[in-house]
């Protein structure tokens, strides 16, 4: 069975995402992919997909219309949205799937106290993967349709999953409790002056509005470098916190460049990355230094929690 959808409003910045691409950073392509893989995974689970892809939107989301067929859809995140079903408008619920028919609509209003949200459809999207991934990076033009963001009135076709049902979760992901981000020492930790390092861990930093999916620019107490503010360019990774000469840290996010020449004071632990990337600009964040063991245990705990959430799926 087939279905066709139309983005009658593309939203502020909506892209197709999956887990991204591995084994290409040595030729200049970073992994990329969904900012919050867990929300994407849950979305795919709710519509009965064996991990396909999701539409990732930020702040003010898109309006999607079903043009043809019948397809299940789920919105994941902390999102204010409406569903137009049989010409009746109802308030949408995140973390459940809806089966929608021709002329029905998903109207995303906005994300609540967060940045990213996901819309996932039940079926195979009719696009060819690029380097084994559907992920789109509009800046580097990598991905299907040259990695472009979704355009107004753009259409997508799906081969719809058989035996569609509506599902919900009995356990939802926890709401963000605080803005404390745990860090590991970075490879150039010792480049920085002791007092500055103390300030870095003891004072809050503001997420500035010049933040996007490549990097989060922070503003706060200046970090003084006692060696050099330029290193021989080396590979950078998601979550690395680099400090340029002006002493204001930048956290590299999902679509970071592949190499960089600024020293890195610290790296965000994987377990806290999704929490970090969901915090909107103008918010304050604080840091805490932890050891490798804690980082690993926290990550494993997160993965276990995600499995439990996914397993809590029940038919409506």
């Amino acid at each position, binding site marked *: 069975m087939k279905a066709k959808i139309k983005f009658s409003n593309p939203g502020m910045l909506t892209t197709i995402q999956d887990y991204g691409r*591995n084994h290409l950073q040595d*030729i200049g392509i970073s992994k990329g992919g969904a900012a919050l893989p867990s929300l994407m995974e849950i979305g795919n689970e709710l519509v009965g997909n064996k991990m396909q892809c999701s539409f990732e939107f930020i702040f003010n989301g898109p309006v999607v219309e079903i043009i043809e067929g019948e397809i299940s859809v789920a919105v994941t995140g902390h999102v204010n949205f409406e569903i137009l079903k049989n010409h009746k408008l109802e308030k949408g619920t995140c973390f459940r799937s809806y089966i929608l028919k021709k002329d029905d609509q998903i109207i995303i209003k906005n994300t609540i106290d967060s940045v990213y949200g996901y819309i996932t459809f039940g079926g195979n999207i009719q696009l060819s993967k690029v380097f084994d991934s559907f992920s789109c990076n509009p800046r580097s033009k990598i991905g299907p349709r040259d990695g472009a963001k979704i355009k107004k009135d753009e259409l997508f076709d799906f081969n719809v999953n058989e035996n569609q049902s509506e599902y919900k979760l009995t356990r939802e992901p926890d709401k963000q409790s605080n803005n404390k981000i745990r860090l590991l020492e970075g490879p150039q930790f010792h480049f920085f002056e002791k007092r500055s390092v103390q300030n870095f861990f003891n004072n809050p930093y503001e997420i500035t509005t010049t933040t996007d999916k490549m990097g989060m620019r922070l503003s706060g107490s200046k970090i003084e470098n006692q060696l050099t503010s330029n290193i021989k360019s080396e*590979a950078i990774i*998601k979550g690395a916190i680099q400090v340029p000469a002006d002493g204001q840290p930048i956290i590299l996010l999902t679509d970071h460049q592949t190499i960089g020449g600024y020293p890195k004071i610290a790296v*965000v632990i994987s377990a806290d990355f999704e929490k970090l990337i969901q915090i909107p600009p103008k918010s304050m964040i604080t840091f805490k230094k932890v050891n490798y063991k804690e980082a*690993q245990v926290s990550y494993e705990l997160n993965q276990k929690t995600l499995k439990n959430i996914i397993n809590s799926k029940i038919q409506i």
Partner: protein
Amino acid sequence: MIKNILEYGDQSVLLDFGDEIKKEINQNVIFVFKKLKQIIKENKIPGIQNIIPSYNKLVIQFDLNLTKLDQIHQLISIVKNEKIEINFKPKKIEIPICYNLEYGIDLERLVQITKLNLEEIIETHLKTNFYVYMLGFMPGFPYMGDLDPKLYSKRLTTPRVEIDEGSVIIVEEFCAIYPYKSPGGWNIIGKTPLRLFNQNHSNPNLINPGDEVSFKKITKNEFLKIWRSNYESQN
């Protein structure tokens, strides 16, 4: 050969090969890079997401769901004891370049900076066999060295908003080529009609770390002919 091994976040390890940008150091990096790729492929070691060489470092990125830090250290200890064979033959690549002033828009400025005349600048550039230290910054962008010190120049004070794809650029001891249109502050000396990166090809990038690159001067007519066949006939 490997001077230091550092944890880099909880899912990466950084190998440090020394402080300088030197071909000898980078060849060690590339050797370990290739060796690791080979071992991982032959033994089907799971969970390695990326191995990323740069001038003097190598980063191994892994997936904590599939492997653990201990296993990465074990993997490193295998290559650590390997004898370096620098006998792997570098691939040689010849890049056609047109130095017409409409493409080499900074050549006249470089005449003033270097105190060489136009012909001498071109001749010096053509004479150099470049070594590819690494790829990065954007897909397929090669960092090549070492440029003759006579051609030394600094970055522009104000970077340009857009530079054409194919532009051949120099700064300090480096030479590079833009695979895409992009902002940039390096000095533009010419343009190649070759496509450095094409996501629709199975081998998307023309140049790889460790390759040797030399340039061949072509006329504007030759340039346009190759450009059309590369950019207009296919995706």
